[in-house]
C-alpha cells in the first residue's frame, strides 16, 4: 500500500482533519437518512415497533415476575391477574417466556444477519472490484448458493450439526448471504468506474486502500439496509427451524415456544394463549424490520428516490 498516494488522494494532508471531515460527512448522511426516514410512514411505523420490542428485550430482567424456567403443576391455566398470558404445558408463565424469548429471537436475528452480511459483503466487494476472473468465479459460487432452496439446505445442515443455538445462528448466517453479495457487487461495479477511483489508481493507490477508502463508504449504507431486511428473514428462519425441532430445546425463543405448543397439544387443549402471542410477536418484529428495511432501501436506492 502506498501511504503517500493516500495523502495526496484525499482532500487534506492532515490525518486528523481527514478523520474529522469523514465524520462530518457521515453525520450529514446519517442526518439526511433520518430526515427521510421520518418522512416515510412505513419506516416510522417499523422503527416504532422495533423500539418497543427493544425496550422489552432490554428491560426483561426488571419486569419478570416469574422465572420462565420454573415448572409448576398449574398446566394450561388461562390468562388471569397473576398470569397475564396464562401458563404453558409445564405450568410456566407464558408472559415471562414471551419477554425472555424476545431477547433470544432478536439476538439470533441480529447475529445471524451480521454473519450473513459480513460474508455477502466481502464476496460482493471482491467480486465487484476485481471483475474478470476472481469476480466471475465468486459470482458463480454465489449462484450455486442462490439456487439451492434455503430451508431444505438448512434443515439438512442443522440436522447433521445437531440442535443448538449456536448451530442455528451459524447455519442461518452462512446460508443467507447470496442476495447481499449480488447487491453489493453491482453497487461496487458502478462505483469502481467513477472518476475519483481512476484518479486514486492513477497516482498509485493500492487495491486495499481503494476498497477501504473509496468503495466501502459507498456500499456500506446499502449493506445497512440489506442487513435490516436480512434480520427479518433470520428471525423468521430461526422460528421455523425451532418449530421443526432443530432449535436448542432448552433455550426459550418464540420459535421454540411454538414448537412446544405444537407438540404439547396446546391447540387441542384450547390453550390459545400459548401459541397465539409468540406468533404475533414474530410477525410484528419481522414486519418492523421489513418496514424499516424497505424504507431505508427506498431512501438509499437512488433510482427509487428519484421522481
Amino acid at each position, binding site marked *: 500500500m502506498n501511504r503517500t498516494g493516500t495523502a495526496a488522494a484525499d482532500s487534506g494532508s492532515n490525518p486528523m482533519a481527514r478523520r474529522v471531515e469523514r465524520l462530518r460527512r457521515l453525520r450529514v448522511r446519517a442526518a439526511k437518512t433520518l430526515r427521510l426516514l421520518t418522512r416515510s410512514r412505513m419506516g416510522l411505523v417499523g422503527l416504532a415497533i422495533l423500539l418497543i420490542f427493544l425496550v422489552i428485550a432490554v428491560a426483561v430482567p426488571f419486569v419478570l415476575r416469574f422465572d420462565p*424456567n420454573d415448572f409448576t403443576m398449574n398446566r394450561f391455566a388461562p390468562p388471569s391477574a397473576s398470569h397475564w398470558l396464562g401458563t404453558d404445558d409445564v405450568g410456566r408463565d407464558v408472559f415471562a417466556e414471551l419477554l425472555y424469548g424476545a431477547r433470544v429471537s432478536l439476538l439470533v436475528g441480529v447475529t445471524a444477519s451480521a454473519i450473513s452480511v459480513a460474508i455477502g459483503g466481502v464476496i460482493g466487494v471482491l467480486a465487484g472490484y476485481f471483475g474478470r476472473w476472481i469476480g466471475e468465479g465468486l459470482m458463480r459460487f454465489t449462484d450455486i448458493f442462490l439456487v439451492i432452496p434455503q430451508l431444505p439446505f438448512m434443515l439438512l445442515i442443522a440436522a447433521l450439526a*445437531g440442535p443448538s443455538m449456536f448451530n442455528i445462528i451459524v447455519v442461518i448466517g452462512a446460508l443467507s448471504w447470496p442476495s447481499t453479495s449480488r447487491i453489493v457487487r453491482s453497487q461496487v461495479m458502478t462505483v469502481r468506474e467513477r472518476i475519483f477511483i481512476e484518479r486514486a489508481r492513477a497516482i498509485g493507490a493500492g487495491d486495499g486502500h481503494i476498497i477501504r477508502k473509496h468503495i466501502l463508504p459507498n456500499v456500506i449504507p446499502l449493506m445497512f439496509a440489506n442487513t435490516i431486511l436480512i434480520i427479518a428473514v433470520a428471525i423468521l428462519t430461526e422460528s421455523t427451524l425451532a418449530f421443526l425441532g432443530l432449535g436448542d430445546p432448552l433455550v426459550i425463543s418464540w420459535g421454540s415456544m411454538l414448537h412446544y405448543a405444537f407438540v404439547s397439544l396446546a391447540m*387441542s387443549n384450547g390453550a390459545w394463549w400459548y401459541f397465539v402471542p409468540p406468533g404475533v410477536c414474530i410477525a410484528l418484529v419481522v414486519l418492523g424490520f421489513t418496514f424499516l428495511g424497505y424504507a431505508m432501501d427506498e431512501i438509499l436506492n437512488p433510482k427509487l428516490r428519484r421522481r
Partner: protein
Amino acid sequence: MSIPNFGINAADFSTLCEWGFTDLKERKAFFAMLVCAMMVLSAMAALGIAKPARAQNEIPTGGTLRIGWLQEQDTLNPFVTNTVQGRMMVKLFYDTLLRWNKTLVPEANLATNWTTSTDGLTWTYDIVQNAKFSDGQPLKASDVKFTFEMIRNLSLSAYYDQVKFMSSVTTSGDYRVIVVYNKTVGTVASDMCLVPILPEHIWKDMTKNEILAATNDNPIGSGAWKLESWTKQTSVVVDAVKDYWGTAPYIDKAVFTYYSNTEALINALKNGEIDIIPKEVPASSLSVLNQDTDIKVTTNTDLYYREISINCNPAGGGNPTLRDVNVRQALAMATDKQTLVDLVQLGYATPGSTIVQKAASYWWDPDVDLFQFNISKANALLNASGYLDVDSDGVREAPGNASLELSYTLLVLSRWPEEMRTGQQLQTWWKEIGVDLTVQSADANTINSYVYPSYNQDMFLWGYSGQPDPSFSLLIMLSTQVGDWNDCGWSNATYDQWYDQQATTTDPVARRTIIYQMQEMVYNQSPYLVLYYMSANGAYRIDTFTGFVNMPTGLNSDVNIYTLREVHLIKATSGGTTTTDYTPWAIAIIAIIVAVVAVAVAMTRGKGGKEAKGSEDKPAPEKKA
C-alpha cells in the same frame, strides 16, 4: 348460502371507497377484491353449515376400522423390522405356534396342544390341520421345522435367541413337530409366542443377504389378515382373511393411517376421521378426549419404560466418577420419579424401579427397597464418599482430583421433546447435590455413535420395550452384551450366573425368585435410573364399533392381537361405502376460483380498450421529498 354481514354500514363503506380511490375503474377493482373477500368468507360459512350435516352423513360405515398412529412400520420383513409397529404387522400376517392370552399367559394357537418330556428337553406340538397361507398353500409341520432351522442355521438375529438351544427339529406326519433342546430352557412357551411361522416354499432358496435385504412387501403368511396396500407415510390397508383357520375377524378391513403430528391425530379422532388410536394418545390430550361423549379413553400399563443409562464401563470414556456406585446412588436419591411422572407424563405412568417392565407383572419385583427422594441424604452420601466442593464453585470434585468435577452431559433423544423437560428438572435437583448437568438433545445416530464402540457418553435417556417374558429385559445387563445391548457397560459375574440359572429353570416360582434377585441387584447398583413405566393410552369412538379389547400394551399391539379380531359394527346396516356430502366444499372452492378470476379480469380488462374520460385520470400524488 347467505352473505355474511361484517358490520360495515353504508357510510363507512363510502368512506372506505373515498379513501384514495379516485376513479371508477379502480373502485371496480376494489369491489372485485371485496367480493373476493366476501366469497371466501361465505365459503367458510358454507363449511360451517356443513358441520351438522356431517354428523349424520359422515359416520364411518362398512366393516372398515380406521386406526390412527404416529409411527408406521419400517419394513414388513420379520427379520429386519426394528419397530413395535413392524412387529405388530408381522403378527397380523403370520401365526405363531402359541400366543399370549389377554392376561399375557401363553396359550394354544397354531399348536392346538403341546407336551413336554419329563426331562424338559423335548417339546411336541400338534398343529391345526386347516391352516393355509394366503397364496393357498397349506401350512404343514414341515414349514415349522423349516422356519426354526432357517433362523438357527443362518443365525438370523431377530429370533435367534428363541431357537439357539434347539438341537433338532423333526416332524411326524404333516401336523406334528418335535423340538429337542440341548439344555432345559425356561422360556420355551413365550419363545413360541414370538417366532412367526413362514412358508417354506417362499423362503427356502433365499440366502442370508437376500433375507436381510428383502422388503417383504407382499407378505405371504397364514395369519388372519392379508396386506392390501401400503402407501408409505400415508396408510396401510389390511383385509380380513374370511376363510381363516381360526375365528375370522368380523370386520372386512383395517386401515392404519399415519399422522405426522399428534394434533392432527387427536383432531382426526375427535372429527370421526378415525375410529381408534390404539396406544399413542399423549397424556396431555386425555382430559380433552375424556370430555367427548363419543370417545372412550383407556389407559393400561405398557411393556415399556424410559430410563437414564449411566456409563459404568471401566474401559470407556465419559466422566469416571460415574463408575462409583455411590455417585450413581446419590443421583438416584436426587431424582423424584413421582414428580417426573406428574410433570412429564401428567400422571399417566408409574414411577420406575427395576429393569423388568411392570406390565410383565408376574416377573416384576414390587418389593425392591427403593431409594427415597432425599436431597440431604444424597448430599450426605457424596460427602461420606469424599466428593467435596473443594473450590466452592457449587460443583463437587472427585476425592484427590480437584480438576475432576461432578459435571455430566445427559443426551436426550430429539424426537422426545417432552423428555427435555425431564432433563431440565434433573438439572435443578442435581444442582442441589453439587452436580452440574448439561442437557443435550441428540438424534439416535448421534447417541449410538457416542456409545458404540468406545462408550464415550456420560449418560443418556432411552427407552426399552419388552416382552411378557423378562428374558430380554434381563439380557441387557449381561457382561457379554457390552458393545451390544448393554449400553451402560455395567457388568457383574454373579448377575451373569443368575441369568444362565434362570434361563434353564423351568419351575416358574423358582425362576421368579432368581429374577427378583437380579432386579434388586441392578436397582441398587443403579446403572439404569428407570424413570417410569409408561402407560399405553388408547382411545376409541363408541359410535360405530364395539368389542375393543383393552390389554397391557394398549388397544392393539404385537401382543394385543384381539381387538382387530373381536371389534365389530354396532349396527350392521351402516356397512358399505363412505358417503360424504362434498357440496359445500365444492361451493367453497368454486367461490374462491370465481373471486380470483373476477379480480384478475377487473385488473386486466380495458387494456387498450375504451378508457374513462381523461379528466378522471390523474397521476399518483408525488412524494414531497
